[in-house]
């Protein structure tokens, strides 16, 4: 399958051709019968008047007129078997008419109108995606849980691993999955123009304290929480954000990017009621906006025809380049959690957040022992980069015990695939997927649903397919700037990003409501 402007052009042209063809064919014909004595009520706007005569013949008239007892018009006289007997201009007495029939043709019936509106919207979206392809195409391996209604996207795997050299392990909480049974079916899809190379997809079944939940830190430690306490206040530059972050419900707190510097930071100040004695932490459910996706694709576009050269250098083990490859991500940073120290200065206690705009991940930052006082926390994050869904303070009870599970069965498009099972279980093998591929991994789960917390741990990398359209954006100087001076690149790209940000966010939000 080939995407891009040529595909867009062809599909738009085909759609328009079919729509014009259909509009011409799919008319609606409305008929009305009128007795001769009611001729005054005839619909004068009707294009066709049929005068059914007492002898069974019928006049089919255009430019017709019924005046007094006289009927006239241009057209045809048809016999009882509807063969044409005469054509021309006719005039006859209304006394010889048995009944009139008017015919009105609507070339724009409701069905055509509905599809016309959809066509305009669809063509508009196609053109938008052709001009802002970075917004519409691309993601990393996406994971859904089968049998979980609605089948929400649960996780994105190794989103930042865009080349073999950047192969990485990614741990995502399946926080919203509540499966009562002893089997988990995890569907992995490749929905983008990418090649996904997956080394493994394991499920971690962690213990859970009674009435509590278990959370992962960014380093992969799993901690049990017994109490989760929502913030008593949440303030940001834009105002009160308590409602947005109170519950993990899809209602998110977000802001727009800075117009001069995409790395500009903002603060969110939270306060929680006094927590009981013991170790505490803060739980944050967040995902990225489309800014990081945009930046990644813009980087590839700047590399253009030399993208292969850059990636090859990365693979050759050019350590300097490898360090610089993640530079822009480091400048953008994660969601930092700050606490006040004894000198009343805000200091970083930890951070959360992973690359990817689709799946919301839940992570924990440990804060040490509770002081018994109300807890004040400040978040420092890049403007316009993060969507915060839920923030809660947690009372921790200790590390969870963890059982690692490999799939016992793999299905490809619903059919058992033993070779794929071997590839995903054998750590030295890799499962390679292409756009459109769907694999379902089946796991046997221990314990009951209330006693376990599920996480998915993936390892691998993916290769983005270059798009023809991106080549026109080739700019070696800008590509070099991204690697050599990320802060400057983020300032330079700010105006360009701000141009598409409103529309991009609008699309994102409208689609999000459907997904909910």
């Amino acid at each position, binding site marked *: 399958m080939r995407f891009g402007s040529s595909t867009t052009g062809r599909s738009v042209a*085909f*759609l328009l051709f079919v729509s014009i063809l259909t509009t011409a064919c*799919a008319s609606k*014909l409305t008929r009305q019968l009128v007795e001769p004595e009611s001729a005054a009520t005839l619909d004068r706007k009707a294009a066709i008047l049929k005068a059914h005569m007492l002898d*069974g013949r019928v006049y089919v008239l255009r430019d017709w007129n019924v005046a007094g007892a006289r009927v006239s018009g241009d057209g045809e006289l048809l016999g009882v078997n509807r063969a044409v007997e005469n054509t021309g201009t006719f005039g006859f007495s209304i006394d010889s008419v048995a009944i009139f029939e008017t015919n009105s*043709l609507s070339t724009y019936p409701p069905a055509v109108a509905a599809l016309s509106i959809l066509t305009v919207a669809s063509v508009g979206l196609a053109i938008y995606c052709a001009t802002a392809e970075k917004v519409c195409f691309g993601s990393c391996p996406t994971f859904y849980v089968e049998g979980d209604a609605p089948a929400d996207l649960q996780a994105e795997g190794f989103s930042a691993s865009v080349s073999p050299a950047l192969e990485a392990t990614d741990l995502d909480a399946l926080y919203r999955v509540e499966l009562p049974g002893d089997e988990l079916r995890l569907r992995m899809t490749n929905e983008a123009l990418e090649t996904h190379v997956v080394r493994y997809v394991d499920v971690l079944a962690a213990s859970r304290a009674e009435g509590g939940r278990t959370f992962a830190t960014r380093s992969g430690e799993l901690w049990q929480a017994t109490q989760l306490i929502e913030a008593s206040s949440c303030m940001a530059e834009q105002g009160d954000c308590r409602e947005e972050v109170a519950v993990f419900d899809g209602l998110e707190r977000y802001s727009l990017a800075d117009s001069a510097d995409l790395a500009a930071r903002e603060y969110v100040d939270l306060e929680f009621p006094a927590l009981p004695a013991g170790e505490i932490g803060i739980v944050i459910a967040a995902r990225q906006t489309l800014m990081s996706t945009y930046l990644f694709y813009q980087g590839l576009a700047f590399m253009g025809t030399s993208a292969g050269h850059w990636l090859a250098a990365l693979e050759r083990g050019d350590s300097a380049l490898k360090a610089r490859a993640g530079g822009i991500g480091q400048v953008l940073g994660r969601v930092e959690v700050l606490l006040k120290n004894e000198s009343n200065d805000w200091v970083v206690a930890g951070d959360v957040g992973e690359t990817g705009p689709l799946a919301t991940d839940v992570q924990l930052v440990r804060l040490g022992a509770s002081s018994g006082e109300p807890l004040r926390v400040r978040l420092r994050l890049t403007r316009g980069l993060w969507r915060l869904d839920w923030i809660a303070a947690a009372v921790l009870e200790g590390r969870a015990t963890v059982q690692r599970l490999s799939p016992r069965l793999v299905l490809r498009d619903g059919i058992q695939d033993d070779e794929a099972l071997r590839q995903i279980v054998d750590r030295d093998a890799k499962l390679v997927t292409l756009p459109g591929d769907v694999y379902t991994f089946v796991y046997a789960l221990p314990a009951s649903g209330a006693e376990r917390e599920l996480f998915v741990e993936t390892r691998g990398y993916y290769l983005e397919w270059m798009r023809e359209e991106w080549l026109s954006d080739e700019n070696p100087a800008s590509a070099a700037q991204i690697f050599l001076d990320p802060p400057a690149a983020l300032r330079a790209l700010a105006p360009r990003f701000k141009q598409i940000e409103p529309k991009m966010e609008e699309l994102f939000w409208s689609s999000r409501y459907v997904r909910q």
Partner: protein
Amino acid sequence: MSASNYIGRGLLCLLASVLVLGCARNTAPSGWLSPAAEASHEAYGGWAMVRDSAGTQTDGELIAVNRDSVYVLTTGGLVVIPVRRVAKLNVTGYNSAAGTLALWGLAGTLGTISHGWLLLFSSPAWIITSSIAAAAHSREPREIYPDVELNKLRIYARFPQGIPAVTDRRQLRPKARS
């Protein structure tokens, strides 16, 4: 769900919806019913499917409907069915060309491939809208007794005024297929 699978399943759904659930069907021979624009210049009756109380079905051109009888011109000649024996009369006045709407829906659904990941939302919109639109449009030229009064179906008859007394019924000829 992946892009291609999503579209593939969507197309199947569309076809299933339109063909199995959606579009009104009739037994008119292919090409017998004229499209709306053409039908407005003709004066034939619509295609009738009459099922009587004994379960016998009569198919043909609706010639006339009067107070006591329904007249259908079949390939075997004019059939007169007493109104009291008519269990169901389904008449289609013209070819709605709903198939082209289904084709439009297919083209639109296929076209969502140019929407990137947004096709997850645009393709269901196409599938649902076009299925409903095609199904609704296919019913535009159709009326069914007993859902509507029998008298209202005469608008689809060759002789809406009833068969004229002067007409020799044996001389009535069926419409030639286009």
